């Protein structure tokens, strides 16, 4: 989870991004765009399954997927992002980009009120950024925060963001996920982390919180004063904490819930063939998009310093099995270090990605000095930095939720003579162990690439980003050439030249193999086909309606 959270949705080349987040109705029949087919039914209750208790409901001070999923219906951003990542007005009615992108001026919508009736003004925007987003929202703080010089409010309807240098991705980072706006009148002069409003949120969004029973359910009612005309269609949204994903499906099939954020692979074929449900297939997760499950090697340890060993292990991995047996088809084999969800940067037809070939893997291991003794674990003979006779045994650190990946990887590597010890660690402990203490051999992380390599990819590779920040350069890969290429990519304006730089970069990465890129993951939102009008994330139920 935490890995996904890190990723930014920001992107300089927003127009090139359309392919990465397209919604795709894969129901039994082809349906026209749900938003436009007929007049939406009004009223009714939508029941939604949550994986975990959100704990707190302030999306401005955390990137926790649980908190965001449960609270984004209550709040709004300045700008809304469509599923295709186009920007449309939300709290901001219009905007101007001035001084080549160093100054942004937003005209705020008139007559918007908070759920408690107080008027919304530019002071709320400035206060939210200054005291929460730029300090506590890890993605927005790290990206916008680092580049921003000041936020000013010339009048109650106008906000200006001034940057030290031109900053292109801002408009991608102002939606309710990256920059929800909270009411100044409830937070001013208080300890943000302990403010009671964190559990009784007051926003400007399509739904108002009615009650929150920790560990059990949240109830929302439609905000009839909502500034978007006619929305929402529903009267009520109930979110129900159902930790077990199998149970979520059971609840869906029993008609108890109408919306799941993800469909467990084993149930997907049955749900699809039942003809009762519609699906939205998306690379968007609460808190990250275009994620690649990635194996890191701790390059600080002598064992992993030989690229031949890394390549051998990569060659021993049958990644199709990961797609079939772990993801149940919800994803694809990663073909390059950069996600196919970023088409302008993804290198297609890349030569040198390790492909599964067990015999070849065995040969590479022998060549690297790891010899079989009988049928068991290989031991070293003449490997640099490793005493002879050391068994090829190493730890594999992972979130407990990724244990299926871990078990499949262990089985595949065991068959070429490597002994893998699994070490499941909960996210907070994982972050400390891997990035602060660097006490691990190998691990698996869901690195979400986001919509631009600048934020979601670069962090994995540049020398300057080795620990202690969570989900930084986990392998501790150091290559001045690669550092230079990322620098070039950032300052290159010509799209073609930039694409070429990323290609060169990926060729280098595939040569060095500091990581193994396993699979690109995607999720299937599922809902009864009596409902329509959903978007994959954010205000997902804002325009939803159901007929019964």
């Amino acid at each position, binding site marked *: 989870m935490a890995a996904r959270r890190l990723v930014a949705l920001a992107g300089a080349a927003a127009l090139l991004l359309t392919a990465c987040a397209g919604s795709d109705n894969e129901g039994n029949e082809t349906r026209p765009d749900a938003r436009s087919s007929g007049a939406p039914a009004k009223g009714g209750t939508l029941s939604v399954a949550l994986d*975990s208790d959100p704990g707190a409901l302030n999306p401005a001070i955390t990137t926790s997927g649980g908190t965001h999923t449960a609270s984004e219906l209550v709040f709004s951003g300045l700008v809304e992002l469509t599923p295709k990542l186009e920007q449309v007005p939300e709290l901001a009615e219009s905007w101007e980009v001035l001084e080549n992108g160093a100054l942004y001026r937003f005209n705020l919508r008139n007559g918007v009120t908070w759920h408690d009736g107080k008027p919304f003004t530019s002071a709320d925007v400035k206060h939210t950024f200054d005291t929460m987003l730029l300090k506590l929202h890890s993605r927005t703080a790290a990206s916008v925060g680092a580049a921003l010089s000041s936020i000013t409010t010339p009048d109650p309807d106008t906000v200006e963001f001034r940057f030290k240098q031109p900053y292109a991705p801002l408009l991608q980072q102002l939606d309710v996920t990256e920059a929800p706006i909270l009411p100044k009148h409830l937070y001013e002069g208080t300890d943000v982390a302990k403010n009671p409003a964190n559990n009784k949120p007051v926003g400007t969004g399509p739904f108002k919180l009615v009650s929150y*029973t920790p*560990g059990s359910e949240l109830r929302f009612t439609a905000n009839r004063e909502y500034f978007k005309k006619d929305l929402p269609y529903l009267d009520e949204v109930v979110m129900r904490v159902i*930790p077990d994903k199998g*149970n979520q499906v059971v*609840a869906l099939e*029993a008609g108890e819930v109408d919306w799941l954020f993800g469909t467990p692979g084993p149930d997907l074929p049955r749900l699809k063939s039942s003809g009762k449900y519609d699906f939205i297939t998306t690379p968007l997760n609460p808190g990250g998009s275009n994620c690649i499950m990635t194996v890191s090697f701790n390059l600080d340890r002598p064992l992993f310093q030989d690229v031949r060993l890394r390549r051998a292990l990569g060659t021993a991995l049958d990644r199709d099995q990961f797609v079939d047996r772990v993801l149940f088809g919800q994803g694809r084999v990663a073909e390059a270090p950069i996600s196919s969800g970023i088409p302008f940067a993804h290198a297609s037809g890349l030569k040198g990605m390790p492909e599964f070939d067990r015999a070849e893997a065995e040969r590479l291991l022998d060549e690297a000095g790891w010899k079989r003794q009988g049928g068991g674990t290989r031991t070293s003979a003449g490997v640099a930095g490793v005493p002879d006779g050391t068994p090829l045994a190493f730890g594999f650190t992972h979130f*407990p939720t990724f244990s299926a990946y871990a078990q499949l990887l262990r089985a595949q590597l065991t068959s070429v003579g490597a002994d893998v010890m699994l070490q499941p660690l*909960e996210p*907070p402990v994982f972050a400390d162990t891997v990035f602060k203490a660097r006490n691990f051999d190998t691990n698996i992380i869901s690195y979400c690439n986001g919509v631009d390599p600048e934020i979601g990819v670069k962090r994995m590779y540049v020398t300057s980003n080795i620990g202690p920040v969570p989900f930084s350069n986990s392998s501790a890969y150091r290559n001045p050439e690669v550092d230079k290429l990322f620098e070039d990519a950032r300052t290159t304006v010509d799209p073609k030249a930039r694409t070429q730089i990323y290609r060169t970069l990926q060729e280098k990465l595939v040569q060095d193999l500091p990581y193994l890129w396993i699979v690109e993951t995607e999720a299937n939102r599922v809902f009864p086909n009596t409902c329509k009008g959903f978007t994959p994330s954010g205000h997902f139920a804002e325009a939803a309606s159901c007929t019964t």
Partner: protein
Amino acid sequence: MTRRYVVRRLLQLGPTAAAILLVGFLLIHLAPGDPVLALAGENGDAEYYAFVREKFGLDEPLPTQLATYAGNVLRGDLGTSYVLGRPVSDVIAERLPATLLLTGTALVFSTVAGVAIGVFSATRRRRWPDVTVTLATLAMYSAPVFLLGQLAILLLALRAGWFPVQGMTDARSSATGLSHVLDVGHHLVLPALALAAQEVAAVSRLSRVGLLDELRRDHIRTARAKGVPERTVVLSHALRRALLPVVTVLGGRTGQLVAGAVVVEVVFGWPGIGRLLVTAMQARDAPVVLGVFLLVAVTVVVANLLTDLLYAWLDPRVRYR
């Protein structure tokens, strides 16, 4: 029951409570790494660590620390959950009613059903109903709670569709009035049955044996000889004393039930302290884990005390050293 016995039994609470506190305290200090990490989690900031250090007196000598820790706990201050950012006592209090409902129902049900089955079995001693029941209860006694839960879901909820699969209420129901009570009741059936199964088995075996022993006694023979109807013999003469062994294990059963509740809450998505405990363990939220442990330990101790007092009251002849 002598007053001396009651007083003695109450006095024993002291050392027991002290031992429980000591166990919690020792675990914090035996855990790998700095105890502040065990108490405050592994990603607090320096300021928070300093606060926790101060609060638990971690820079003081160990005995002082123990006193501080005990003082905090005895005042009901179990610390702050660093994941939820709220006092542990509040977090536990929120979840407690659901668990009390679940375990309470299971306790009552297992006692009533267990005794009924025991009587049924004992009065048909060594005939096929008795043998069948004895075998069935032994199997029930041996089955892991999660197997029973999973089977109940598969057969009674998924296949037959008689009961909801998980949760405490229907997501669509309004949360008020009689319909709410019925809704909760409907959701309660399977988890309570799964939780009670092992205890039904234990109670029925105990009451069967107790009753068999009792029915062999002289005064029962006398009653029978006098022509007292068998029904009356069993229900009013023998049963009361036969139930004594059932009472003796009440305390221990409470512990078993609460432990079982953790598993049942996970299987059925029941929002009680069991699930809180499991989530807290996954997040390494030590204050919550310790808080739940202390609560459960105290509950079990008190349940044992009440059991002993009840037993002494029911059977004054019981000799206590």
